[in-house]
């Protein structure tokens, strides 16, 4: 799979998902406001995992910036 195909696939998924979008009102956000529903529900764990995988695998980026700041890779 090339990057173009991946972009096309994700655009397709995004387009389909957007079709089902509801305009969620502020008073309907109780569930969305829960800690486990946050995009990064545990930044400390994410940061540790990113560091581990960045130093043991050749990929970077995705969830956030792809920098390293470490001599481990």
């Amino acid at each position, binding site marked *: 799979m090339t990057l173009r195909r991946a972009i096309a696939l994700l655009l397709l998924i995004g387009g389909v998902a957007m079709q089902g979008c*509801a305009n969620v009102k502020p008073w309907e956000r109780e569930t969305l406001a829960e800690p486990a529903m946050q*995009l990064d*529900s545990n930044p400390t764990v994410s940061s*540790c995992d990113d560091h*581990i995988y960045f130093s043991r*695998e050749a*990929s970077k980026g995705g969830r956030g910036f792809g*920098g*390293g700041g470490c001599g481990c890779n």
Partner: protein
Amino acid sequence: MAVIKRRFRRIKERATAAAYALLGIIPPAAAAESKPWNVDASFLRYTESGRIDVTEPSVSVTKPFANDRSLGVMVTVDSISGSTPIGTLPQAPGAPVTTTSPSGHATTSNPGVVIPMSHYSDTRFGTDGSWKQPLGFGLTGVIGGEVSKQSDFLSYGGNISLAKDFNQKNTTVMLGLSPEFDTNKPHGGVPVPLSSQLAPTAISADKRVIGLLAGLTQVINPRTLMQWNFSQTRENGYLTDPYKQLSIVNSVTGAPVGSIYERRPASRIGNSLYWLTKYSVFSHDVISGSYRFFEDNWGIRSHTVDLNYHWQFNEQGYFEPHFRFYHQSAADFFNIGLVTGQPLPLLASADYRLAQFNGITGGLRYGWTFNNGSLFAIRLEYYTQRGNNHPDSAVGIQRGFNLFPTLQATVFQIQYNFDPARFARDFAAGS
């Protein structure tokens, strides 16, 4: 006149408070006062079987201010020690070993060939800070910086991002930029690439990195959230690992006759696409699933699938089983070793992290929220990396060796998250 002004201000304040109360909204200033400080203390231990051990304590503090502004500071220390593969090939087959158990029963086994390792020990100090500031018109800016230092590496980085909310905060678009400047100061100097020469050419070598990030977050319905990110990382400068080498082996027997230092390109552009979905099920459980596609101009392509289930089994406790699958293809210049009689390539590395392999992670996290609002969590994860044990390019005796020993690692982490002001109040009340 002054009295009239003060009265008018009091009436205005009361009217504003009444309006907020009517709308059921907490006034911004009061909201900031009620928002607590947050301290997140963590202790992590990463242990590879027979290789590297890392102990990493870290503390991260977030201080909220009025009008949704906040300051975040994180400090971490990594103590790293153990052995890591150099990249060279085994010298000779392992001799069979006979062991005798306490019962007198003898077993003979071939322990296999040990991949050459070098011992490594270092300490890394890292700190970062960020400031979040709403800018009006649904815009939020974040500016941050980070410094990381170890005995042979120094890194300075910054980041700036802007997020804009649309559609009653159901859609958020984010753009970010992150420059980074790294200096590599290898012990013994920077080696001559593709040479066995130990005399260094320089004391240090620099690397510049620019990260770009564009993201879209969309609320799909009251229970579903999705995020799409595109990020690009551009690296220029010294991207070679100064400690990694390649073997040169006899083209017939496969016996190593020497080794040279590796050489990677002086630039790299990596692109990644990331898709995250969060879906709330039952009352408070959450399924998170993400997929990442990555490719770079070194020929590496990877796929990462990450699944997590947040099981809130009662008001205070939860379990989180976690599974991750990763696959990457090899870099174009990855080579397990070179053979005699052939011209040297322009680029070559035998670093196993540039080989084709699969990585699998499985783990479990347990969290508990105490009555005072503080949160304790513990997690244990197991990570394995499996590659091609017997690559086709192996010659002679190397064909019989396991050239990609499985990497097995455990991650153990304890985390305690609390509001220091409340902690101090409770402590004073208790004493």
